[in-house]
Each structure stands twice: as C-alpha cells, then as structure tokens.
C-alpha cells in the first residue's frame, strides 16, 4: 500500500507503507535558511526577527514579508543566508565573562551618580506639583 501522509512532500515520494525510504532529499527539496532583519522606520537599526526557508534571496524576501511584516511597522527588510553568518562558538562563551574587580570599566560607579539621582528625583517632584 502506498504511504499516505499529511505532508505533501512525503506523498510525492510515492513509497510503500513500511518501506525504508531510499534516497530522499534532492536538491531543492529542502531549502536553506535565511536570517530576516526588519527595520521599523527609516534610520532605525534593522532588528533580527526570525528565519525563513527559501531557495534564493528574492524568494526569501517575498516569504519574509508575509511571515514577519504583514501587520505594518516595517519599511525595509534584509535577508542574509544563515550559512554566511560568522559566529563565535558556545564553547568560547567564557570570553564574554569579565573579572569582578574590573567594575571601574563599567558605567556603574560614577561619583556623580547620587547627584544625578537627586536631580531626577527633584524633577519628578516638580512635575507632580
């Protein structure tokens, strides 16, 4: 008996129920992924919004528009082949750790901080009056 599936790609393989599939994913049967970046308004930075499967960039744009920008709030889309992204390895995630004693490099310990807080507080009170 022919294998019937809800997945049309499985139906197209035309294989018998229980049979071991032979040779299956042909070129174009499984598209690569593209990373999608959307820009909310001109001048804003593009933000990563998700991925789409597509055979090429043009098709990736067409499909990305309906997946990620069909409800407005977008003026521009970028797509980039996932394979073209250069990334760090999770094994090297420790490179992002910093030594606790180096807080002087982080913007948390300004001497004027109290002053700034006092100013913000007084402004808030003024506005409330």
């Amino acid at each position, binding site marked *: 008996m022919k294998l019937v599936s809800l997945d049309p790609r499985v139906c197209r393989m035309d294989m018998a129920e229980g049979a071991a599939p032979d040779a299956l994913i042909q070129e174009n049967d499984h598209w690569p992924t593209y990373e999608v970046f959307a820009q909310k308004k001109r001048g804003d930075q593009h933000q990563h919004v998700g991925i789409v499967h597509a055979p090429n960039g043009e098709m990736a744009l067409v499909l990305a528009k*309906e997946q990620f920008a069909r409800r407005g709030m977008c003026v521009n889309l970028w797509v980039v082949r996932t394979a073209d992204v250069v990334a760090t390895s999770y094994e090297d995630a420790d490179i992002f750790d910093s030594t606790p004693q180096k807080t002087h490099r982080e913007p948390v310990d300004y001497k004027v901080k109290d002053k700034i807080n006092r100013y913000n507080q007084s402004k808030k009170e003024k506005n409330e009056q």
Partner: protein
Amino acid sequence: MSNKVIALKELLYKMADDQLIIGHRNAEWIGIGPVLEEDIAFGSLAQDKTGQSWNLYQLLEKMGGANADKAAFGRAEKEYKCCHLVELPIGEDYAFSLARHFYFDHAEYLRMDALKSCAYPDLAGLAKKFHSEIKYHVFHANTWVKNLCHGTEESKSRMVSALAYAFPYALGIFEPGPHEDLLVAENLFIGEHALREKWIGQIADILSPLGISLNMGSLPILGGRYGYHSEHLAPLLQEMTAVIRLEDDSMEW
C-alpha cells in the same frame, strides 16, 4: 436609480465577487501548501482578497445595496458577477493556482491603478488602498513564476502548461459589462478593453524573458459578468454559505 449608479454598482459587484471567490479558493491551500512559509504567505494573500471584497460590499451597502454579509453570502448564483477564472477548483497542482494568481493580480493591479482616478471618490480611495496591497501580490506571483521557470525541466513544463491552460479563462476577466460605455464616458473607469491591452503588455514583460509566449488567438471564456457561471460556482457557494444558512437573520457575526 440613475444609469450612472447602476453602472457603478455593476462594476463594484463584479470586482467584489471576483475577490471574494478567489480569496476563498486560494484559502483552500491553507494547511496543504507546498512549504510552510508559502502556506502562510498564500493564506495571508487570500485574506487580503476577502478583506478587499468586504470593503467593496460595504461601499455597495452605503450606496443603498444589500447588507455586506447578505451580499457576500445571501445571493442566488445568477446574481454573482465573478468571472470563470476565479471559480475553478484549485486542482492538485500548485502551478494552476499560481498561474491564476499571476493573471488575476496583474489585472487587479492595473484595475486599481486606473480606478485611483475614478470620478467616484469613495471608489478612488479604496483603489488607492488596495493598490499597494496588490503590489506585493504581484511581486509574490512574479517571483514564483520566474523561479519555477528557472527551476528544473519539470517545474518549467508544469508552470508553462498551467499558464497556457488558465489563459482563456484569464481573458474572461475582461468581459465587458452591460454599461461599459457609460463608465468610460463618466470617467469612472477606463473600460475592460483598455485594461486588457495594458495587462497583455504587462504580463508579456514578465513572460517573454522566460521564453513563454501566449496564444493571443485564444477565445476568452465568457459569461460570468452576466451571471452565467461554470459548474464549479454553485457547489462552492453551497460550501461557503453552509454556516450562515443554519442561522436566522438576527445572528450577529
């Protein structure tokens, strides 16, 4: 009712009916589309069509016509003015639905472009709104047709035969209505004949570089604009109205 209003209503009904029926047909692909992303995209385009028809039925209601829901789901088959192209079943081959989408949306794009300068401001306003939505529909259709024609031998031959099969039906989009001359004289619309000429030019711009030439001698499949439909419309209307027929008129939707 003046002849001008009769002519305008005729135009609005056929546009709304085309959109409602193709919207329903294309939505039949939801859940069984070729790939997930396309399933979502095509379903979303189908919703745009239904939304456009709703806007037009509401405009008709404002002009003294039937309630929009009644107009969409409560008329006899003969009162629908859609063309045969939109009535055809989706078939088992995605190529036919793409071919229909390609022909129909190029025509819609040009129709809305022309109606942006319609002498009836309410319609001109809607046309402007629809035009940008349909611009993407055309982009979507062109991209698929081009990709399948540049794909494998099989994808090209299936796309080409679907385009050839759908062409005489597509020519039926431009079947002139009964008040064509009046619409043109009153600056409401450029007329189906002029629209068809623009359309032929625009689709040829896409198809010629792909090596596809259409049989310009094809006889258009007509009748829809006068209420004569293919055998596929009646069962479709039965299906579409299955729920609304269960309820009485006081039902809130």
